[in-house]
């Protein structure tokens, strides 16, 4: 299988502290992957590197069939190339309503001049409405997103990710602070998305990871400690020592 994203030998140092240490990580085109690991393991930093927020000191980050290097590209260019990202704490535009948030994310020409002359087409409205239905916010389209509950904001952010129509979704702790039912809805959203694209989920909650039913990568001190099925990695003594057994 050809890989969608190939990270190899990447290291990052913050003020002498090695947050990512010779990390290698691959993901295929329509694959779901969970990343687990203790606090400070470098999970968020890994996403920062892939999305262009942090430049690695060394290593390669290659993308797509043509193996383009993402390292020299800006955040916006990487996003346009097809990498979508959901942040650890929900970040939606609270001052704007749900519809505008989704419309902003909808895959369209992003240049200032074409946005300036953009006219909402019926097709786009239909797309936004379909997305809103999918994330369970169909009735909330006109509401300011700042008024939404925590769980709804998380879904809106996932909806915005889907609206971008990326080939790779990087999702940082989507279930944090959610109730049990909300988690189930989130799981089904992600599983559905992974049918047509790659999805990488960072999560601490083992129940949640189990329901995703996918390959798991364990990070520790900036590199991969174990990889495989959830049962396989949770049986690993090192993983128990540094993470599960805390």
């Amino acid at each position, binding site marked *: 299988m050809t890989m969608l994203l190939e990270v190899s030998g990447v290291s990052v140092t913050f003020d002498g502290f090695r947050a990512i240490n010779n990390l290698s990580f691959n993901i295929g085109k329509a694959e779901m992957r969970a990343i687990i690991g203790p606090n400070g393991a470098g999970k968020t930093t890994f996403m920062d590197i892939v999305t262009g927020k942090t430049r690695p000191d060394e290593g390669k980050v290659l993308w797509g069939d043509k193996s383009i290097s993402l390292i020299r590209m800006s955040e*916006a260019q990487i996003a346009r190339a097809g990498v979508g990202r959901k942040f650890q704490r929900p970040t939606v535009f609270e001052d704007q309503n749900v519809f505008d948030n989704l419309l*902003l994310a909808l895959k369209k020409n992003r240049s200032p001049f074409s946005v300036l002359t953009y006219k909402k087409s019926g097709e786009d409205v239909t797309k936004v409405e379909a997305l809103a239905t999918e994330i369970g916010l169909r009735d909330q389209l006109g509401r300011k997103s700042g008024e939404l509950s925590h769980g709804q904001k998380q879904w809106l952010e996932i909806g915005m990710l889907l609206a971008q129509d990326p080939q790779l979704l990087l999702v940082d702790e989507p279930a944090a602070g959610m109730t049990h039912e909300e988690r189930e809805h989130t799981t089904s959203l992600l599983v559905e998305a992974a049918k047509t694209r790659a999805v990488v989920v960072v999560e601490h909650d083992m129940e949640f990871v189990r329901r995703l039913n996918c390959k798991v990568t364990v990070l520790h001190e900036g590199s991969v400690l174990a990889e495989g099925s959830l049962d396989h990695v949770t049986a690993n003594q090192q993983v128990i020592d540094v993470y599960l057994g805390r």
Partner: protein
Amino acid sequence: MRRESFFARNPSVVVFLLCLAAFTLVVSVMSEGAGAGLISTSFIKTLGKTLCLCLVAVAMDLVWGYTGILSLGHFAFFGLGGYMVGMWLMYQRTHDIVAASMANATIPPTEQEIVDAIGTQIFGVVGSSEFPPVWAFADSLVIQLALVVLIPGLLALVFGWLAFRSRVTGVYLSILTQAMTLALSLYLFQNDSGLRGNNGLSGLQNLPGVEASQAVVSIWFLWASALALGLGYLLAAWVVSGKFGSVIRGIRDDEARVRFLGYSVEGYKLFIFVLTAVIAGIAGALYYPQAGIINPAEVAPIASIYLAVWVAIGGRGRLYGAVIGAAFVSLVSTWFTGGQVPSVNLGFYRIDWVEWWQVILGLSFVLVTLFAPKGIGGLFDLLAGRIVPNRHGADYGPDKGSFQEAEGRE
């Protein structure tokens, strides 16, 4: 989510334009120029200048209130617009005077002699008679008018490109813009800057080749300023109403998130910075012929800070708030600093309003920032007591009556 016309979606724009038209009409009819004489020519000029300040405030709101870039340098663009038009006004008028006085000479003067005489007239005060290179196009109205737009636009483009590309934001950007306007004003203060140093350009109220009296000319400028404000407001409202407005408000609230959506934040910031610089330049070009004089003190750093204060007091993030703030504060300021307000004698201390006005202004800025972040514009929402209707972010209240009120108080 149905498609409606721009005006149906933004009723406040219609209300604003109607108020502006009514205001201009009423003031014109009552003016000296129209024969009624209820409003003096000098006050017509004050009102016309106020409209220009409202226009630059709209630009400030666009760049700060909507995009979140606290530029404290937009008066540099305003001043440059004034200088560009001022050069033609001064050159052409001096040309007419010089040509007229030389016409009686026995030997008709050559074109070169006229130009030399103009040079002596204009640059005598700075001990020179040569035309500096920046005056190369001063004899062409068309080119100077183009420069009103081009020079501020170009400065904003270069400055913005450098600043935004290196991701300078927040306080650092504000300081950088202050440095820009300070540098410009210091440069202009020099005699060899070619723009008459601290003398600036004067006599700008006289339109070359126009016979009409100042009373009539002041009405023309009032109209031109009102037209520019109306068009500028319309343009700004259009820019912020659609998806573009959604993007720039997103940049204001969380620029990193906008980046990860694939928008080039720097490009958008640059676009808004240049657009507002151009609007500021046009506002300045209309302002200074009404003021009659422009000098480097006009682009001193404090001027741009005042601009931010007006917009804060009026209520940023809503265009009519900027207009109300600029109109209200600048008119009250004219009143206080004009020396007409009697001083208050407390026995042990005399409150002299010309100085104390600054303190009041500073205090109200602090109070508004702390207790009424929506400014005066926010008061109208309270008064109207209306529940925010279910529509897209930008269009706020229907009421723009305040503008008239602020004017009417004078």
